[in-house]
């Protein structure tokens, strides 16, 4: 075992010798099924997210293949709608959210000086719910009628017309929601109760803060989604008319309920991403995070505001002018705390001592492109402009800047940043940089031009389009294939690192200063902080 740099806490350094490596002594597959170890479960979440990322990515490539030329070539419109729906659901619930829960599992106990998550068995179950949900989501393709073709927003009354695949999807959403709620309860309890002595709330790394706030958002928002889809389920099968005007219901009611979940969901994805970036930028600037306290306040402000802006997704449903104005003002208000965060990150880099390894490159890519996505969000917040752009490719471009260049770039930054801590091995820096630059170029090739498509008038979710949109669509599709290929570099680099990576130094990043780096050996042993660290 490598030596621990701080003499005052090497009590734990012998932990793994006394306890053996794996929970309950199981080996093979049973180790993973029965594990209650936060690191094992974090690993499971990350592998699951990786697989789902490729499944959802293949769906996106099929969509871009069909859109390469006008006319219907490879897939029929019905299957196209199914792909659009599943791509969204799988990427959000299967790839991005589990990836960040994986980070939370690995990092939160190590960052606050806890031995594990608060509810270890619950943690196991939170993960193992996911494969069942994924099976239902993908299994919907193999039942009569196929997967639902409604878009990931699942708007009724279109949902009522769908086949049994819709019911499978609704149950999948229930299970995913359950998993998220259980995971969030665990994260909240861990952060509030298991901090090491001296690790006050205003000392925990910002990643833990953003996750604490995210977990509250999840607990508040996921039951709302479950309610919305349950009402759809009873409308489909049990004669209720929540969303059917013929029985006194209202289709728009669903949209309100859905987006009351859906907008906080955007921040459920974005806040942990902010957290990762807030760890990476100071480390590679060799300088403390600028404005830690204001970051905490800004994150909280964003979380609270996220619950009062939902109807900006619905400006065209025909709400009263006072409603439109309220939601517009509340939405543009979010630009203030978000701006504070961006300024803080830039100020952290200012007068630092910067180096540009792969995690930092992805963090800078995040910073620029996420801000761009934030700016188009400001454009879309303005009612009259949004009415022109709503449900066009401009919106598609906007949310992919936030989801891909935001959340996914941040996830890559996190993986490259923490991989040496987790595995004790160093990834190949040259391949990492190729991965970043190709991802950056191809990402913009796919999505930047989609702003033009939207402004010129191309609706989203159409399998075929007018001739004037052809050139941008071809550029976008070529970018998508390039983007897909670039991710294979990441896969290769990852497996190469796991098999034969160079051993990582104890402190591979000299600017990292959270206790997972300073108080634990690299790689982190199977059990850590069984006795709390001593903090100054």
């Amino acid at each position, binding site marked *: 075992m490598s030596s621990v740099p701080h003499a005052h806490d090497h009590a734990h350094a012998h932990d793994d010798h006394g306890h053996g490596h794996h929970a309950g002594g199981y080996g093979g597959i049973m180790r993973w099924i029965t594990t209650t170890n936060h690191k094992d479960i974090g690993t499971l979440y990350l592998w699951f997210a990786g697989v789902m990322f490729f499944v959802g990515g293949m769906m996106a490539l099929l969509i871009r293949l069909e859109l390469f030329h*006008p006319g*219907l*070539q490879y897939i029929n*419109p*019905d299957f196209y*709608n199914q792909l659009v729906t599943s791509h969204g659901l799988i990427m959000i619930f299967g790839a991005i959210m589990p990836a960040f829960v994986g980070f939370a599992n690995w990092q939160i106990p190590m960052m606050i000086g806890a031995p594990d998550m608060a509810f270890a068995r619950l943690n196991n179950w939170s993960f193992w719910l996911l494969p069942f949900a994924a099976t239902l989501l993908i299994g919907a393709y193999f039942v009569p*009628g196929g997967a639902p073709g*409604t878009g990931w927003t699942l*708007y009724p*009354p*279109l949902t*009522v*017309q769908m*086949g049994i695949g819709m019911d499978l999807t609704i149950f999948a959403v229930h299970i995913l929601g359950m998993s998220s709620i259980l995971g969030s309860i665990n994260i909240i309890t861990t952060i509030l109760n298991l901090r090491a002595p001296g690790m006050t709330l205003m000392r925990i790394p910002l990643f833990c803060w953003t996750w604490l706030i995210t977990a509250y958002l999840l607990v508040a928002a996921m039951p709302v989604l479950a309610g919305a889809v349950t009402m759809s389920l009873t409308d489909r099968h049990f004669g209720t008319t929540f969303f059917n005007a013929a029985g006194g219901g*209202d*289709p728009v009611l669903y949209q309100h309920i859905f987006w009351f979940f859906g907008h906080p969901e955007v921040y459920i994805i974005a806040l942990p991403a902010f957290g990762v970036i807030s760890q990476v930028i100071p480390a590679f600037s060799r300088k*403390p*995070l*600028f404005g830690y306290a*204001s970051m905490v306040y800004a994150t909280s402000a964003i979380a609270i505001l996220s619950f009062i802006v939902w109807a900006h997704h619905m400006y065209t*449903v*025909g709400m*009263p002018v006072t409603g439109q104005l309220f939601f*517009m*003002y509340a939405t*543009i208000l979010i*630009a*203030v705390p978000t701006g*504070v965060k961006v300024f803080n990150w*830039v100020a952290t880099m200012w*007068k*630092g*001592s*910067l*180096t540009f390894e792969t995690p930092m490159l992805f963090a*800078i890519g995040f*910073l620029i492109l996420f*801000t761009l996505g934030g*700016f188009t969000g*400001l*454009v879309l917040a*303005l009612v*009259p402009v949004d009415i*022109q752009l709503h*449900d066009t490719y401009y919106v598609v471009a906007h949310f992919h800047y936030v989801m891909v260049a935001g959340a996914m770039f941040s996830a890559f930054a996190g993986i490259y940043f923490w991989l040496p801590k987790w595995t004790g091995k160093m990834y190949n820096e*040259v391949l990492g940089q190729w991965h970043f630059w*190709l991802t950056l170029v191809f990402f913009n090739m796919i999505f930047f031009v989609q702003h033009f498509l939207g*402004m*010129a*008038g191309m*609706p*989203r979710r*159409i399998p075929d389009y007018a*001739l*004037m949109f*052809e*050139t*941008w669509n071809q*550029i976008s599709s*070529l970018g998508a294939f390039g983007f897909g290929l670039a991710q294979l570099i990441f896969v290769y680099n990852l497996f190469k690192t796991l098999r034969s990576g160079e051993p990582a130094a104890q402190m591979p990043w000299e600017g990292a200063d959270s206790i997972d780096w300073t108080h634990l050996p690299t790689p982190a042993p199977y059990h850590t902080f069984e006795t709390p660290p001593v903090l100054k």
Partner: protein
Amino acid sequence: MGSKPIRSISAVLAAFLGLAASGAAHALEWYFQAPASKMAQDIDTLHQYVMWLIIVIFVGVFGFMFYACYAHRKSKGHPAAQFHENTTVEILWTVIPAIILVAIAWPVTKTVIAQKDTSAADLTLKVTGYQWKWGYDYINGEGEGISFVSMLSTPREQIENRAEKGEHYLLEVDNEVVVPIGKKVRVVLTAADVVHAWWIPAFGAKQDAIPGFLRDIWFKADKLGVYRGQCVELCGKEHGFMPIVVKVVSAEDYTKWVGEKKKAMAASADDPNKTWTVAELVTRGEKVYAANCVACHAAAGQGTPAMKAPALAGSKFVTGTEQGPIDTVLNGRPNTAMQPFGKQLSDTEIAAVITYARNSWGNKASDVTPAEVKARRK
């Protein structure tokens, strides 16, 4: 390392340039369509105003960042400062953006209020979204009483790449909406089945059509011409194939069009006392089928299982009693894309299409007369 990725990047770049050249036949559309109403013009102006603000802020903020990336690098020997807060700066960069946002919100608010004012319209047009066509009823003002259904007119061969695509591929319809220039048109929207959305980009007018509810918007076109848009709310299989075309004409031409349209409507209305032969009904029914049924029930009546649309060929229900199919076509089937066609189709059309289905694709059964359909209407 290096040479291979570089070669693949240059291949992609070459493909990119080649495409740009091949795309030159169609001008590259990258901005809003030319506005044809003051509202669209106002939206364009607002967008430009906000866009320039954004560009200035973006360049400013990332100017600092890139300067730091250049000047404060470890490789240049820059030592890391250790400051981590500055209250003055933090207050400034909270307050200044807030002021900028007020400067954005103020002009936008006026446009929002104007956009919502549907009062004092010269003409009222009711728009109904169907899977997958638009119904139009002129319900107030000159042309009151005109009513028609508007459908995609692009031939199937073009969509399936068996024929060269026309200039207005997917943006052309059989019945265009015609409105007079300079008149305020109030559009009242609803839908018969699922949520649709009606949009003409050049007017800056977009509104969801919600089944069971009426919503309204308005536009006032100030340029003659033909303006094209599409349904923008995912509404099922043929969502990409229900365009909207509005033709803006002078007041005189509009009056002329109203006269012609009314005459044409009267001429095409079927004589209720006419006695139809089976052959006539089948011929007429084939046209009705092609316009209304083929998207789900398919060309040979084989149905589309994915749409829950059953096969009509060989169906005992279709060839059984006459009331069964009549009621289904009149009233639809709840929770499916089979909508009530009673309001869209005349007795003759319904009789014709049922007779056609009962006597095609190997089916053989008695014909259905318009009188029988009329009797089943409630």
